[in-house]
């Protein structure tokens, strides 16, 4: 974890350090760990003891902020879904309304991811936050691989380029990777987000002979 994500504070009580650090980082008090590194027997008489403590966020800042924003959004949407930080550094949405939060072809999950990134990364340029919902990404990855292979077969059979639906960069990358080793086709992304899509070209009548 980053060095600037440690605060050293002198406080009369641990709870105060927790609150101070949480405010400074834009987190909840539950999101930080406090470790006492020095206990000073009072020279200040009536003020009692003083503690020197180290405070650290319990996970990367951007993920904690993202999780807190998600909790608030899901509450306002009245959905029974709980966001959790995973070992892979993603935010997983789990619960009985997971299907609603994924949406048709994952479009609601994408919207959620987009909004959370806009809000949580506003202040610091942290890493992008990825959302998942109980293995949705893996299922989507498999279906994108099948889609890519089918598009390649179609492009070769018809001798014409096949255009896929608009996709996010993560989805387009899966299509490109799936067909990378396929010598019969070439893939490219065309258009601009959010309508950027993959085109699968058959190589015989492909872009090499048509390129401007």
């Amino acid at each position, binding site marked *: 974890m980053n060095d600037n994500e440690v605060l050293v504070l002198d406080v009369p009580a641990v709870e105060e350090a927790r609150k101070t650090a949480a405010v400074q980082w834009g987190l909840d008090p539950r999101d930080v760990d406090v470790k006492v590194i020095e206990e000073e027997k009072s020279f200040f008489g009536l003020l009692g003891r003083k503690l020197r403590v180290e405070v650290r966020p319990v996970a990367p800042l951007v993920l904690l902020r993202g999780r807190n924003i998600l909790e608030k959004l899901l509450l306002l*949407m009245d959905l029974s879904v709980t966001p959790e930080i995973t070992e892979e550094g993603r935010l997983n949405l789990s619960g009985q309304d997971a299907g609603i939060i994924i949406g048709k072809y994952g479009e609601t999950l994408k919207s959620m991811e*987009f909004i959370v990134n806009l809000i949580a990364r506003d202040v610091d340029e942290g890493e992008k936050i990825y959302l998942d919902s109980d293995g949705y990404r893996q299922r989507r990855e498999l279906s994108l691989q099948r889609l890519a292979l089918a598009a390649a077969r179609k492009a070769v059979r018809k001798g014409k380029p096949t255009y896929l639906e608009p996709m996010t960069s993560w989805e387009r990358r899966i299509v490109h990777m799936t067909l990378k080793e396929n010598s019969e086709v070439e893939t490219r992304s065309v258009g601009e987000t959010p309508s950027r899509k993959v085109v699968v070209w058959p190589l015989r009548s492909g872009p090499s002979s048509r390129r401007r």
Partner: protein
Amino acid sequence: MADYRELVDFIVRRLVTDPDKVQVTAENDDRGVISIMIRVAPEDVGRVIGKRGATINAIRLLAKAGAVKENERVDVDIREEE
């Protein structure tokens, strides 16, 4: 029940440079659609709409996802000039 007005208000306030100018209202129109209207400072309108409408569309989809269980119809729009 989902609180569409609060939901949109919460998001928009965190996207703009001037949160004091944010106003979000909810109205039931005669076709039974809950219509959420966003008003922000002129310099923040683009920020809420986003590139090719990406941001306002995402906000719209989240509101609609909140409406699934209650089977309600909700739409979100932004007042572009005032």
